[in-house]
């Protein structure tokens, strides 16, 4: 993993003592988490543990108020950034429940999103003295078709209205398509596996595996071990009650499967007493 040469290195993505509330109710109660380049992390936990809230807070959902702590991305504090700034900087959230936008075709939406994010990246590269390619409409269409084919999506999908009348599986595929086109540096996937049959799960996992690489960090939020048969995490974290209570390697997910959250929780409680 990173830091193997022993030098102190700034983590790519670092959440520190994060507290957040909605309507005055505290949901996140001091979350700590570090994701480095090339790492895939799985975050597991029971319903209501705060997993989705964490995902929303990372993306900048204005409904949540961060009361304490920080989120740093590539060394910068992102909490003051608007959601679109975060996206342009390379953060991505695959929503558990993507919103319907009637009348807006996938293609139009994707073109605008991809143009904004890619051009922002090009601006940044140029500001640093480099050069970068701005995406042309032709290049965009080619790219969209290519990624849709990878996700086994019909061409007609591009003309459908965003998430309108999509089946559960189609919604998840559409989220992965967006991720594939936006090429984030840090992707959070919120229960992308839920509601998928096994074939869809394979396709979606393949999409995720295609994106993952030495420069990309990923946080998979999931309920079940099942997804982790297709996407191999480097680290697994268990979240309950608004905190990450335990972190470990892939074996932790198996242990969870065997013992359940209650079993894990009691072990953690014992450990903290001793």
């Amino acid at each position, binding site marked *: 993993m990173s830091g193997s040469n022993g030098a102190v290195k700034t983590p790519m993505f670092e959440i520190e003592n994060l507290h957040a509330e909605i309507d005055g109710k505290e949901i996140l109660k001091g979350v700590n988490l570090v994701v480095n380049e090339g790492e895939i992390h799985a975050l597991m936990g029971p319903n209501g543990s705060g997993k989705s809230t964490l995902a929303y807070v990372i993306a900048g959902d204005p409904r949540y108020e961060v009361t304490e702590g920080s989120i740093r991305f590539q060394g910068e504090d992102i909490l003051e950034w608007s959601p679109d700034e975060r996206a*342009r900087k390379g953060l991505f959230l695959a929503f558990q429940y993507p919103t319907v936008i009637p*009348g807006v075709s996938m293609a139009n939406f994707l073109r605008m999103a991809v143009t904004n994010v890619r051009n922002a990246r090009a601006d940044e590269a140029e500001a640093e003295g480099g050069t970068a390619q701005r995406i042309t409409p032709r290049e965009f269409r080619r790219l969209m078709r290519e990624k849709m084919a990878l996700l086994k999506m019909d061409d007609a999908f591009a003309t459908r209205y965003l998430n309108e009348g999509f089946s559960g599986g189609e919604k998840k595929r559409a989220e992965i398509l967006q991720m594939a086109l936006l090429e984030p540096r840090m992707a959070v996937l919120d229960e992308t596996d839920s509601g998928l049959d096994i074939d869809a799960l394979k396709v979606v996992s393949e999409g995720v595996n295609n994106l993952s690489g030495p420069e990309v960090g990923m946080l998979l939020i999931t309920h079940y071990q099942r997804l982790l048969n297709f996407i191999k995490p480097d680290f697994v974290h268990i979240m309950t009650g608004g905190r990450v209570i335990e972190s470990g390697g892939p074996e932790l997910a198996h242990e969870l499967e065997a013992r359940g959250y209650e079993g894990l929780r009691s072990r953690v409680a014992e450990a903290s007493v001793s």
Partner: protein
Amino acid sequence: MVAAPQIDIGEYQYGFRDEEDYVFKSGRGLTRATVEEISAMKNEPDWMRDFRLKALDHFQKRPMPNWGADLSGMDFDDIFYYIRPTEKQGKTWEEVPEYIKNTFEKLGIPEAERKFLAGVGAQYESEVIYHSLREDLEKQGVLFLDMDSGLREHPELVKKYFGTIIPYNDNKFAALNSAVWSGGSFIYVPPGVRIDVPLQAYFRINAENMGQFERTLIIVDKDAYVHYVEGCTAPTYTTNSLHSAVVEIVVLEGGRCRYTTIQNWSKNVYNLVTKRAAAYKNATMEWVDGNLGSKVTMKYPAVWLMEEGARGEILSVAFASDGQHQDAGGKVVHVAPRTSSQIISKSISKGTGRSSYRGLVKVYKGAEDVRSNVVCDALLLDETSKTDTYPYIEVEEERASIGHEATVSKVAEEQIFYLMSRGLSEDEAMSMIVNGFIEPIAKELPLEYAVELNRLIQLEMEGSVG
């Protein structure tokens, strides 16, 4: 950092004005002498002069309508009723006075004409200063003239239909138009002629306190087809201007007429327009009505379904921004059996803007097996904007199938967040949601106009949030 595109926040793009250099400008206010002078200058036949005077009489007697938008800011004595900018009409843009030509260049009309139109009429103040029609259409007997030339060159045809669809005493503003009308389009499409690309008229007000009263008459003969498009803009003044048009359309057996409006008057214009079509056996009339500009608009395009099999469709989009009231909708009157109609209205309100849907579906006794469907959707962009709905349904026949649904929605915060999480700014997210909302109507427009409509909405949306 990312540079935001530099667009003037909320500024009306067509608010520029030309210096006045006119051949004739009437005094302010309206008298019998004004009307007689207009008629004399145009060398009109007696019947038309008498029609004007009867209409003036009715206008003066008729009270202001008080059932719709607030018209208390209208001062009829302050308006200039007739302005002739130039002596002659151009058949090429070179023949049009330089400054007027420049104005239409800025509005993109000659360019659009070269690219995708079969004919163009351009009205500046009270007169049509430019007119063209593709040669092959002229040879097929299509007439596309300004209304004054139509009256001079085809008096019989004009006399047969003029004022028959909308009589001079229909309402106060139809009466006003009938008294002082000038310009507008006269179109005749002979039997079986189908005009493949649109004819366009463009209306420009330039002078302060101008009243523009164009009059349009379209006759679509048997099995013929025409798509007519009108656009309109004006300079921004602090005082009010008035645009009060009358549009009459006759669609004969098997014919089809589509009439598309992109109204983008500056926000000091009262836009009080009467539009009505009569559709005969198996004929189709379609109004596509986009209202973005003006201070107050009252406009309810109507279709009278006169004979069996006739079909009427009204698609209406209104955008009411700060200080605007868009009182728009549509009327369908089923006179004959087995006629069908559809009204789809979409309105967007923002800031202190207000949009009202006002519509009528009427089915006369004996008009059996009529089908009609009305859908009106309102979108509110914030807490301050307003919308209301006045759907009137009068059905005298039992065997009629009438549907009506209305929705009011707000832009959901989660929609904005979702789009922003994909790199769209808040303004861009809002525009995208609004454009999606009107998509069912935008997709009915020719591509160029759909793009224009989206662009205009984008401009209206600039700075609407945050």
